[in-house]
């Protein structure tokens, strides 16, 4: 299992957050936009590259296909490794926020 201590990019964090349930590419775009209240708007090119990287790292895996009027779409889901990375990043971010609250001097 591959793990990391480096910070995740915002896009990767939100994709992992979205893929705690099975979603296809367009679903991920919509979910990340919804989770960030429209602030993070992933382009299809960026998302395609991110999905390829996450598959290579073993943090997400394909989990079947959905078919609708527009054709068949691959669905993806976090692996156990992906969920661990997500939790580790959440703890890191929490620590940052806690330290910010404690040590940032207010005027």
């Amino acid at each position, binding site marked *: 299992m591959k793990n990391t201590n480096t910070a995740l990019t915002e896009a990767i964090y939100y994709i992992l957050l979205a893929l705690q349930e099975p979603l296809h*590419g*367009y679903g991920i775009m919509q979910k990340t936009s919804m989770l960030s209240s429209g602030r993070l708007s992933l382009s299809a*090119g*960026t998302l395609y590259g991110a999905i*390829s990287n996450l598959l290579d790292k073993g943090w997400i895996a394909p989990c079947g296909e959905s078919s609708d009027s*527009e054709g068949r779409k691959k669905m993806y889901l976090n692996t156990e490794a992906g969920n661990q990375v997500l939790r580790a990043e959440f703890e890191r971010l929490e620590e940052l926020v806690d330290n910010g609250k404690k040590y940032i001097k207010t005027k």
Partner: protein
Amino acid sequence: MKNDRIAINWFVDFDKEEQWINEMSKKGWRFWHTNGVIYRFKKCEPGEFIYQIDFDEKQREGGEDYVVFRSSCGDIFVHQCKHKIYWKRKCVDGEFEAENNVAAKLRLTNKAFNFHLNSFIGLTIIAAIAYLILMPLGRYLPENGVTSWLTDFSCGLTYGIILSQMVIILPVLRKLRKKMNQMVEQIF
């Protein structure tokens, strides 16, 4: 009233190409095909579509095809010319998300740079052969119609090649290198 329009154009910079196609769309001409030089348009409502040029991505083993993937994300596939893919979207559906596909753009620019550099080297070799072998041959062989033609031909070929290198290939190489440097700065 004509419904089709053909325009001849050639771009080194794909950002400028995208800008031009979008300007044509604003004037009521929607792009639908190109071979890199001849661009074909059909009549549409002015500003009905917006366009984006994108680049094919290497398909991961067992992964999705990029065109299929992006089409499923709501963009309309228009045309693919080598590695360049042209997408459109109805204006009412909003702007394209900011495309951050710098690595793919850099790969394509690097490819274009290598192509032009190879052309430059190939032409230099041809010019050198013409100047150093054919021209002396034409001068020193016993004079007849063929040798005088050979001298004129090799002289014309050498100067023609040097002129085309100075006027076309070198400026293109400079432009591509500048663009690559800008992209490398964006990545790092």
